[in-house]
């Protein structure tokens, strides 16, 4: 079912403060084309449907194999990565929009730093040797490694947050990706040394208590990370931490 032409409808915005507008492009169909290759074609010949030459569309991409998360955008109303969005599987005209929950930079490019700031808040890393050696870490059982591996696939793309009704441009909710990383690093034997600090961080502003269990995060996650399980697990860990804070400290 090859179509000879590809119709693109792109929501554009020239600067963070200017008004958004729609622009349409018609491209030649190429076999196995994806959204990134289409955007590259637009960049090569930025002429819109009214035959005007316009500034090329701005977008972000990096790995082109769905592991970096930078080309995340809303394609035909659904948030996903542009690199794995194959044109032949999409209904035309293909509508491209930037993610709406992050500050817009230009066209399809948004600023996802809020996610990285949240990862810093929860110390989403494992401390390594400092001024002295802390030794070799314990062996991780295979079953646990298997669980951790799925969680470690998170690429901080922002799909779960774009689709979350609790996460908005103006509030400070951390969102599923952050909670899942807290779970990942808390279950690591060396990472567990900072477990309390991580839990205290998600028991604060915009933390775990704001989750409304709409569970859209898990539906849109491109890596099939069990985000709702992570949320429940962090719910349990924070509850136990609360009891500890209230009755044991």
């Amino acid at each position, binding site marked *: 079912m090859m179509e000879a032409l590809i119709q693109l409808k792109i929501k554009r915005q020239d600067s963070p403060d200017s008004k958004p507008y729609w622009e349409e492009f018609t491209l030649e169909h190429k076999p196995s084309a994806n959204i990134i290759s289409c955007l590259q074609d637009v960049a090569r010949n930025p002429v819109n449907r009214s035959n005007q030459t316009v500034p090329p569309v701005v977008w972000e991409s990096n790995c082109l194999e769905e592991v970096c998360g930078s080309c995340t955008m809303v394609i035909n*109303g*659904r948030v996903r990565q542009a690199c794995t969005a194959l044109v032949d599987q999409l209904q035309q005209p293909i509508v491209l929009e930037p993610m709406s929950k992050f500050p817009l930079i230009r066209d399809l490019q948004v600023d996802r730093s809020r996610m990285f700031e949240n990862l810093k808040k929860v110390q989403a890393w494992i401390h390594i040797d400092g001024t002295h050696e802390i030794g070799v870490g314990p062996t991780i059982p295979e079953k646990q490694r298997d669980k951790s591996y799925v969680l470690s696939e998170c690429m901080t793309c922002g799909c779960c947050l774009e*689709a979350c*009704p*609790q996460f*908005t441009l103006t*509030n400070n*909710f951390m969102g599923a990706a952050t909670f899942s990383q807290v779970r990942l690093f808390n279950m690591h034997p060396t990472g567990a040394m900072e477990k309390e600090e991580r839990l205290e961080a998600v*028991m*604060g*502003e*915009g*933390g*775990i*208590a*704001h*989750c*409304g*269990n*709409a*569970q*859209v995060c*898990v*539906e*849109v996650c491109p890596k099939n990370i*069990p985000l*709702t*399980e992570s*949320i*429940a*697990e*962090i*719910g*349990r*860990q*924070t*509850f*136990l931490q*609360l009891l500890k*804070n209230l009755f044991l*400290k």
Partner: protein
Amino acid sequence: MGKFTKGQIEYFLLKLHSLTGLVPIGAFLILHLSLNALRTVGVLPYQLSIDALNNLPFLIWIEVSVIYIPLLFHSIMGFYVFTIAKSNVFKYSYPRNWMYTLQRVTGGVVFVFLVYHVGTTVAPKLWFGHHLFDAAPFLIDVMNDTFTTWTGRTIYLIGILSATFHFANGLWGFCISWGIVIGPQAQRNAGYAFMLFGLVLSVMGIATVVEFSLHPVSVQPTFGGTS
């Protein structure tokens, strides 16, 4: 424990919002619906249950501390939770997202219903003074009148169904938020279990409405039952 940060207070209030939905408000809803369902057994057991509750010692203090304050707190926090989020159910129409949105809608509906419900049942009692009249004949007459019209019946059916949905679905959310139910399979099973639970509560409520609508019976004050 020292000083708390703004974030810690926010966390604590949200947890308290979640907890008050279960106890005392949810517990009261179960009690309220099951005692009212006594009306389907007969008007006398129903009247005796009203007498029993209305003759509890320190009733007004129980009402204020176990019902009014938690309910008001839960409502205020509910509106706060409602305002900081934005439903996207028409964009991402998954069943759970519908439940999430319905949870907020039913919360608002129940709030409006309760203003009406408390205004027509409890408020006159407070107005006239608790000891000046018998609760059972008064309340039963209010209900008999309400259920003569389809407007009254509809208002109560919407109110009851919203409350049972909000409670049953809220219990499911509670189990996840507090980490009682963790895995996806367990979450799904809990969803079915609470759906069944909500259905049972709904049936009790609907049966009471039906009984009042079909057989309105006025009663006399229960003599000797109040001492």
